[in-house]
């Protein structure tokens, strides 16, 4: 039984066919890479699985049961956490508040769910350090942070609630060399913990390195699926671009 199973997912935006009959599964302890050219529909697929967009048609099953992911909340309750491509941080909140947004460590209802800021700060410090994210202060609004710092926070956030499936939409795009390394390690650790991971990346080297399975989208359709070791770099590129002559410098 797969952790996550998509069947026949389609999505239109007005006249634009963003996704067409996509099938995809994610198993326990498996890293699935989702690749494709710009505008292929990767982020749209991610948004559907995270409850941000609803598909026009198709079915989503979580642990074998049909799930209606009508909102990000519903997806989170089904154990799916996502790092969005645009990060989706609240600019006016600080790093700690963003990290725990929607899953604050708080006291009982009697105290009106009083925030236990000290607990959160301590946990935040730990998790940020584990990804080498360096912040000068935990109290500045994230709008004042650098691109990489923001991405680091977005990634840490997805891990805080111990999710079953983690979806990462271009998680390393803005990261520095060492942070990038940490994230790749992290993905390995997530796999070892038996979670399902979906990674979107444009870096074919990373993809080959971490992915157990590669799903290729082109213009909204799934054009290929490869298992680890069963493809060459040029297979990926030709699947993505639809051209067989291009191999690139991979």
């Amino acid at each position, binding site marked *: 039984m797969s952790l996550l199973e998509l069947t026949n997912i389609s999505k239109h935006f007005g006249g634009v066919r963003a996704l067409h009959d996509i099938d995809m599964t994610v198993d326990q302890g498996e890293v699935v890479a989702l690749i494709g050219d710009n505008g292929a529909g990767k982020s749209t697929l991610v948004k559907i699985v*995270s409850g*941000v967009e609803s598909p026009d048609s198709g079915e989503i099953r979580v642990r074998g049961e049909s799930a209606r992911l009508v*909102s*990000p*909340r519903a997806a*989170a309750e089904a154990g799916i956490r*996502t790092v*969005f491509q645009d990060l*989706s*941080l*609240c*600019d*006016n*909140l600080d790093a700690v*508040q963003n990290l725990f*947004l*929607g*899953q*604050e460590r*708080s006291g009982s209802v009697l*105290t*009106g*769910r*009083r*925030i*236990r800021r*000290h*607990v959160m*700060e*301590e946990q935040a410090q730990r998790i940020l350090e584990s990804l080498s994210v360096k912040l000068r202060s935990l*109290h500045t609004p994230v*709008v004042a942070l650098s691109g990489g710092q923001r991405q680091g926070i977005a990634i840490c*956030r997805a891990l805080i609630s111990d999710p079953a499936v983690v979806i990462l939409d271009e998680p390393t795009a803005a990261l520095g060399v060492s942070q990038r390394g940490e994230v790749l390690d992290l993905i390995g650790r997530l796999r070892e913990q038996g979670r399902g991971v979906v990674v979107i990346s444009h870096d074919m080297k990373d993809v080959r390195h971490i992915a157990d399975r590669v799903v290729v989208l082109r213009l909204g359709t799934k054009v290929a699926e490869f298992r680890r070791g069963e493809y060459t770099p040029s297979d990926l590129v030709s699947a993505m671009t639809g051209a067989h002559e291009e191999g690139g410098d991979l």
Partner: protein
Amino acid sequence: MSVATETAARTPASRVIELAGRGHRSIPVLVVLAIIWAVFYSQSSAYLSFRNITNLTLQIATTAILALGVVFVLLVGEIDLSSAVLSGVCAAIAAGLAVNSGLPLPVAIAVAIASGMAITLIEALVITFGVPSLIVTLGGMVILQGLILVVLPPEFTVSVAGTSFAKIASTAVPAGTSYVLAALGTLAFALYKAYQYRERLSTGARTSPVSVVVPAALVAAVLFGGVYILTRQRGLPMPVLIVAVMLLIAWYFTTQTRYGIHLYAVGGDREAAQRAGIPVRRMVVYSFLILGACAAVAGMVDASRQLGVSVTSGAGPLMLNAIAAAVVGGTSLFGGRGSIWSAILGALVIGSISNGVQLLGLTTEVQYFATGSVLIIAVAVDVVLTRGSLWPGRRS
């Protein structure tokens, strides 16, 4: 994708204040307030008499209470135009029940608050359905103008002079009791701060006992100073106590709880908040419910001060004053920025201006000129102190 970015160097003054304030947006407003007071005092020494300060606090009570509700709505990025008229409707309900129908006062008050919340609940549901809040509350305002005609008895007025209802505003807490309350307040605050200090220590976070002593001393100064000044006349006026308690509760919920963080998140970036799993619609509804309750309280305090309710209750400049108070105090019209202190501080600024202008006995025209320009200048000074160089990054 708009990000506040400075396009010019900050003024040195703003640095000082930034350091002094450490995120306390209220300090520049306090400076502005001090300037306003100094200017009017130099024109008329009666301005800072105990009597006039007491007047001032009573005068702004209604605006401050309503502004408090408005702040909640602005924080989630919505706007409201109906709550002033709603306050009139709720006052009419309460006064009608307490005076004309002879219901016990607490029951009448409870019914009025419940009605206020029911009405804003309906508004909020329409808003979360997708109709812009400006339209819903404008339409709501018109409907409520009709409703107050229906709620009022056929003579379109309820007089509450000499009834228990009048006590809401006219009760004065004796000086002794007031000091006890101030002491209790200070103690509770100090204990809370001490508890937080212990909590932080337990996780090994950097902290120091100064974080307990300084705020507690400040709170003590404000509470005892306030009680001293405001009990000069006849004891502590009840509306002041009501405002204080409401601010206390609002402070706790907006800054110390999960609810508060969600409030700011929804106002800061609604989409991001929703993606984080926050029930955005519900948060908007909560804000409007709080507004409804505040409007009801404001209306009752107002009616009890004016000893009557009529079709003009809640009309006039109350609505704009409440919104302006929130904005003057530093709350953004665009959501996500501001604090509950802006309600009381903004109401104080606006009230101080209008009180001072009236005291000077200027001609009508000059009163208008003075009121309008002092308001703009006051906020401009605030901008110079903190926000000026941020244009056009910040908008509100």
